[in-house]
């Protein structure tokens, strides 16, 4: 039977290897488009912090453009984006840390539950006890480990008796995963600890005043992988009692620790989504480009 001739001729074994999938070089560079509104799910029910149309200016320069975002109770929100995209500026406006910069001006609605953060009657010291902050470089006070942690509770009058203060110090150090390492040298200087221990001391100092929200500005960028893993473990445990917003340059870290991820780009909030979505199927092409390392 001579059926072979009848085989469709054009289908005979074309080699796909000779045909490159897509010639990347020839793709024209297209104009970057910002979404009109943040894509994804920037809002949640019953948020801890409600931020609407937030603009931040440094003098005449606008660093943040109309950012609207909710930070939910007991959730970890990671803020990611290329350098200079405004994520730290935004984070700092959440406990009025930008007040220390004269030319900085913040507008929009920023609420911690039902309290307006920028209400002129707002006591900033009290606000910062409710919204604590951990910085990029560990910055313990030049005091003993004990006094570092006890400083906040003393300032805010949270403990009247010595034993009460002892208890706060111990609980905070335990929560920060540092107690076992320092319990025998509580009165040694905090600056004598290793980098990772110092950062955990700073976290203990922050949580000693029982804040509701903890802001973290690249808390692990100066730490080795082991210390980083400890801090990340700690973040996970802290979500039981606190709400956390973390700025990080490590996308893997954002992927590991956060529930939702917010992507900033040149002062705009491009996309907020469940972390899993952001890292497997981001909605916006700018997020995609950053996540896959195509710029930034």
């Amino acid at each position: 039977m001579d059926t072979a001739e009848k085989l469709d001729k054009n289908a005979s074994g074309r080699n796909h290897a000779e045909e490159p999938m897509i010639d990347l070089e020839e793709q024209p560079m297209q104009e970057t488009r910002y979404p009109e509104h943040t894509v994804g799910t920037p809002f949640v029910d019953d948020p801890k912090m409600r931020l609407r149309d937030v603009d931040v200016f440094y003098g005449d320069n606008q660093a943040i453009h109309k950012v609207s975002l909710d930070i939910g109770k007991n959730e970890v929100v990671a803020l990611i984006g290329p350098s200079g995209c405004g994520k730290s500026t935004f984070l700092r406006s959440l406990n009025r840390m930008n007040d220390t910069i004269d030319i900085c001006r913040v507008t929009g609605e920023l609420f911690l539950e039902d309290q307006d953060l920028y209400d002129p009657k707002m006591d900033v010291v009290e606000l910062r006890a409710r919204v604590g902050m951990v910085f990029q470089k560990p910055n313990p006070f030049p005091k003993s480990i004990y006094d570092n942690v006890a400083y906040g509770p003393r300032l805010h009058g949270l403990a009247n008796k010595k034993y009460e203060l002892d208890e706060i110090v111990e609980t905070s150090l335990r929560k920060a995963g540092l107690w076992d390492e320092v319990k025998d040298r509580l009165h040694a200087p905090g600056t004598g600890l290793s980098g990772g221990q110092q950062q955990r001391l700073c976290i203990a100092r922050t949580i000693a005043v029982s804040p509701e929200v903890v802001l973290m500005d690249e808390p692990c960028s100066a730490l080795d992988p082991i210390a980083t893993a400890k801090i990340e473990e700690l973040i996970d445990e802290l979500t039981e009692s606190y709400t956390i917003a973390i700025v990080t340059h490590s996308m893997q870290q954002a992927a590991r620790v956060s529930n939702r991820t917010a992507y900033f780009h040149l002062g705009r909030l491009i996309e907020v989504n469940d972390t899993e979505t952001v890292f497997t199927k981001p909605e916006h092409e700018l997020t995609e480009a950053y996540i896959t390392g195509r710029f930034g």
Partner: protein
Amino acid sequence: MDRTYFGQHSSSQFNEALESIRNHLMEMGGLVEKQVVDALDALLRADSDLAEKVMQAEDKVDKLEIQIDEECARVLALRQPAASDLRLIIAVTKAVSDLERIGDESAKIAAMALQLSEEGESPRGYVEVRHIGNHVRNMLRDSLDAFARFDADKALDVAAEDNEVDLEYRSAMRSLVTFMMEDPRAISRVLNIIWSLRALERIGDHARNIAEQVIFLVKGKDVRHISMDEMEEKVKG
């Protein structure tokens, strides 16, 4: 979303690694496609030399499978790919195992061709083999094209074609079984054709799997184990 929107990765090594994986996948696809075409040819022409060739090609396909899997594992370990890069790696590792299975099925067809060239031709079934063979070959080619071009619509067409192949396979089975009842002396030769049709039908399933991976790659949606209508909705919606 067009993954080439922003062009190259900031890391040229990462670019090269991804490029190399894509090229090897296409090379493997080309080899397997040729295996299928040759196996059909060998069966239809009772060409035992060609059948031997198909079986020998397996070795090269297997080596490529291992190589591509190693490359993918390396990218996962060293680059921690995310978003479309991650989906590419996942889709490639799955498509590679489907391609390898298609190679296996081609070898089975080639083995049937060898037997038929020794025993003499089957009195029936060649029309069906040619017809379903053409279908399946087009499906494989289109699924590889869709992979190469990130074309989810074409992948959807492949999935639709698989349903047709399944229908034709069932009807061919019925007519061949009827024929064997009428002429029991031909059973052993007709069985060789039936096994070949079975292999072709499986190749169609694997081509459909590859197409489903293309949809996952392009749209980020898992379309396995759902009806054609649902699949269409996920791709278009």
